[in-house]
């Protein structure tokens, strides 16, 4: 009897338990990994935090030679370039999403959709290279004079332009976040009830009016979510921005002026940082960036999730 029992393979329920435990184990590993990551960032940046405290966020000098650090110029650069990028990319991406979902036949919409997704696949460094050698001269020779002659009375559009600066970085960022906004907006538009659309058309609305009443209005919060998600993408973008923004830690009124972002300063200075305090200050910048992108993404996810919730239940 005993022999038979030994030959029998271990029971299926036992094997299942093993499999389940393994899966759970690896899931826990990933969760712990993230916790370690957050812990490490806190740990590495505590030296700078002890030194400067919350004044780190509001001080506007960054001087590695004298070991004085304040992150305000980088926060300024990050916020301004991201918002400007959103301003450029937002209307365009929402229009493309509308065009794809409401106007194009299915085959063509797939092609256009693939094209837009391909933009997301282009590595950031290539955007940077293109921006440096193609877009920056274009901005310097064509865009800047045009803006100066039409809107030059505003302080925003004054001052010399070297091609590299806030405006060029924003344009690059705008191109890079278009796919994000478009794909989320498409998802949102697809969740609009077709009955409402038919009702609007049935009442004699033109296609434009139908889209205004039955598509754009109910998906307003979803569009906002898509834009916030795009903002989150723009905040963390590193290489392309680092190559075209000029990397000067200054706060300037003009959008032609060079600046620096939180991500770009890390890319530029981290490998060469000499003092411990400098490294620690850069880590603190990283921690700040992490927290900001986390909050922004969380807000966006919540909004978009609420909007498309009804549809994802199959």
């Amino acid at each position, binding site marked *: 009897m005993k022999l038979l029992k030994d030959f029998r393979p271990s029971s299926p*329920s036992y*094997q*299942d338990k093993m*499999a*389940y435990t393994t*899966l*759970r184990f*690896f*899931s826990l*590993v*990933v*969760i712990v990994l*993230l916790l370690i990551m957050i812990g*490490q*960032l806190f740990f*590495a940046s505590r030296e700078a935090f002890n030194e400067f405290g919350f004044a780190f966020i509001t001080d506007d000098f960054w001087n590695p030679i004298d070991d004085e650090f304040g992150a305000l110029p980088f926060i300024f650069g990050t916020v301004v370039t991201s918002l400007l990028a959103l301003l450029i990319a937002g*209307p*365009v991406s929402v*229009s493309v999403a509308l*065009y794809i979902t409401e*106007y194009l036949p299915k085959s063509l919409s797939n092609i*256009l959709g693939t*094209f*837009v997704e*391909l*933009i997301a*696949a*282009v*590595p*950031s*460094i*290539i955007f*940077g*290279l*293109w921006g*440096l*050698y*193609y877009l920056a001269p274009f901005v310097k020779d064509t865009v800047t004079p045009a803006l100066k002659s039409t809107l030059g009375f505003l302080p925003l559009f004054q001052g010399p332009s070297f091609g590299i600066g806030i405006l060029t970085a924003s344009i690059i960022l705008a*191109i890079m976040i278009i796919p994000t906004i478009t794909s989320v907006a498409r998802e949102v538009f697809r969740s609009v009830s077709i009955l409402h659309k038919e009702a609007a058309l049935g009442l*004699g609305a*033109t296609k*434009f*009016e139908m*889209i205004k009443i039955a598509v754009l209005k109910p998906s307003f919060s979803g569009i906002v979510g898509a834009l916030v998600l795009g903002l989150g993408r723009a*905040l*963390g973008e*590193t*290489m392309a921005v680092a*190559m075209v923004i000029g990397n000067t830690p200054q706060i300037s009124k003009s959008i032609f002026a060079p600046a620096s972002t939180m*991500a770009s300063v890390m*890319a530029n200075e*981290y*490998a060469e940082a000499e003092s411990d305090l400098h490294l620690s200050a850069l880590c603190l910048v*990283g921690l700040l*960036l*992490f927290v900001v*992108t*986390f909050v922004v*993404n969380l807000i966006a*996810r919540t909004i978009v999730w609420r909007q498309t919730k009804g549809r994802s239940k199959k």
Partner: protein
Amino acid sequence: MKLSKKRVIKNQLFRGTLILSSLIVIMPLILIFVFLLQKGSTSLSLDFFLNDPKPVGEVGGGMRHAIIGTLMMVALGSFIAVPVGTLCGVYLSEYGKGKIAQSLRFTIDLLTGVPSIVVGIFSYLIFVVSFKSFSALAGAFALSIIILPIVTRTTEEILKLIPRHVREAGLALGLPRWRVIWNIILRGSRNSLTTGVILAISRAAGETAPLLFTAFGSMYLSFQVTGPMASLPVQIYNYAISPYKDWQQQAWAGSFTLIIIVLGLNLSAKFLFNTKKLKKFFVRKS
């Protein structure tokens, strides 16, 4: 009933705006391609693929070391991330309830959103600080953190497409649950799962920021994972911001190579296996 002229014009104008914005969106992509073709293809040669860089001042040389470095680090990164990512995806789709699953979902969401430069700093703090030298291992680890959430996400989405009754049929035959998952669900959706992996790899291959201060880059061909290693994106970055015309040429050629690799992987993943095939495989119309 006739529509008033104003409304018709508005309608047409709106349509025009949408078409215009679509053109605006596609334009940068085309411009980048033209730019890379123009600049990149002229400086591309066999030497570029077969030689290491020459010292400053000497013309010629190539990026063999960087291409091999990228391949090695991406391979090492996916070697770490793909199994773990797949297991997490399976856990989410097959067992995905309870506190752990919810926190895992949240973690994956968060990891997707973390800027890649922050991932680089994390990898630096863990590997470079403790080994006291830049290393390919640190770079590969950073890349694996970028690959992981993409693989998990796609695995979960793909496995969710498989209808319930397939699982039930397996269980009804008396198979233990892990065999149903391993032999039926994972084997059956192998091709689609590969899509996710290829997409993740193509993303990782183009990453620069996390490699800047982990693998750091080098000018020699190296196979040592504990030392600094060159990679195509970092090499492009260093060459692009250098003042030498010859190096800039090399940067363009490198970008041309990189975009061919990345878009090639991306498109082939999309066309070779799409998820519709998966549905057909499991749901045969009777």
